[in-house]
């Protein structure tokens, strides 16, 4: 089986003389949860957008399951963007129907079960929900797909610590053992224990790609502490 994600010499410039990503090489195996970490402006969101076909590489290429980003890869990639794209006038139920229409691998029963556990009614209008609840709804939608690669851009940024626990729990209970989750965040200590592996990005390049326990074994410190050292301002 091919790695679920491969980047070869991936570079992206927005035309301002700066490289958001520069000659990035990366390969992700199946069946792991990977943290994509890096300071602001290190290229995390650029990489995520390239994987999701929202940007085109300046040089190099991205392959998902051996194919270039496009319609076929969107079937197997479930993406949670950093910002919400939900239509505020919709009801939660409309959103479910929308996802069901779009994706063959959307599991409606799973979505409804999670929404019920969170106490979110299907008839609630998205505009009436708090920011944190909207984020939860969106994550529920994304995790209710049987995807092969989940890409979560800052999934726990805007929610309180209790909701954060619930979201991590949702990720742990819903992900399939052969799927890979790539998630970006600044809240490293909150998610460190659920990660297999961490990737540190700096100035558009990978500066570390190691398992969490390798980091702890070799550096005798947590990923959070290592991050603070590597990226000290």
């Amino acid at each position: 089986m091919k790695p679920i994600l491969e980047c070869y010499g991936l570079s992206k410039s927005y035309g301002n003389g700066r490289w958001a990503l520069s000659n990035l090489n990366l390969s992700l195996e199946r069946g792991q949860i990977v943290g994509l970490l890096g300071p602001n402006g290190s290229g995390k969101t650029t990489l995520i957008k390239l994987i999701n076909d929202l940007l085109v590489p300046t040089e190099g290429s991205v392959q998902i399951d051996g194919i270039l980003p496009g319609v076929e890869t969107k079937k197997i990639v479930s993406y949670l963007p950093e910002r919400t794209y939900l239509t505020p006038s919709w009801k939660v139920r409309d959103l479910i129907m929308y996802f069901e229409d779009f994706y063959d691998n959307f599991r409606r029963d799973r979505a409804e079960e999670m929404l019920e556990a969170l106490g979110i009614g299907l008839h609630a209008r998205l505009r009436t929900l708090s920011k944190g609840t909207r984020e939860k709804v969106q994550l529920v939608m994304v995790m209710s797909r049987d995807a092969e690669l989940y890409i979560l851009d800052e999934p726990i940024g805007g929610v309180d610590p209790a909701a954060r626990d619930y979201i991590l729990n949702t990720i742990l209970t819903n992900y399939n053992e052969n799927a890979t989750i790539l998630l970006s965040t600044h809240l490293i200590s909150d998610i460190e224990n659920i990660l297999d592996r961490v990737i540190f990005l700096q100035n558009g390049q990978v500066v570390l790609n190691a398992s969490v326990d390798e980091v702890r074994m070799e550096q005798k410190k947590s990923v959070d502490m290592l991050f603070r050292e590597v990226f000290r301002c």
Partner: protein
Amino acid sequence: MTWVLDNNMPIYLQLMGRIQRDIISGRYGPGDKLPSVRELAVEAAVNPNTMQKAMSELERSGLVYSQRTSGRFITEDEELLKELKKEQAARYLEEFIESMHNLGLKNDEIRILFEDAMKGEKEE
């Protein structure tokens, strides 16, 4: 609910330690079935692969064994469990004595303090 894990040790080692303690303390008895890796991972809020690794290591140490279809069980070897309890107690004692030495206390002083504390414990 979540397990308390510290920062600078590999997570799988801490999971092993925690499960080992649960076994020694009798939360799981000899021959008991352990929850699935997935359930334990969710309970501990850790990655399932990390929990899997902790389980494999516990299997290697003989403390748990797996039966192909029915899951993982605690060893019925009570000698091994006793042995582990002794080892764990020895580690705690070592840590205790080291902390006392770090406070600048001599062995005789430690003994007196320890005995006083044990008396206090009984009276309570």
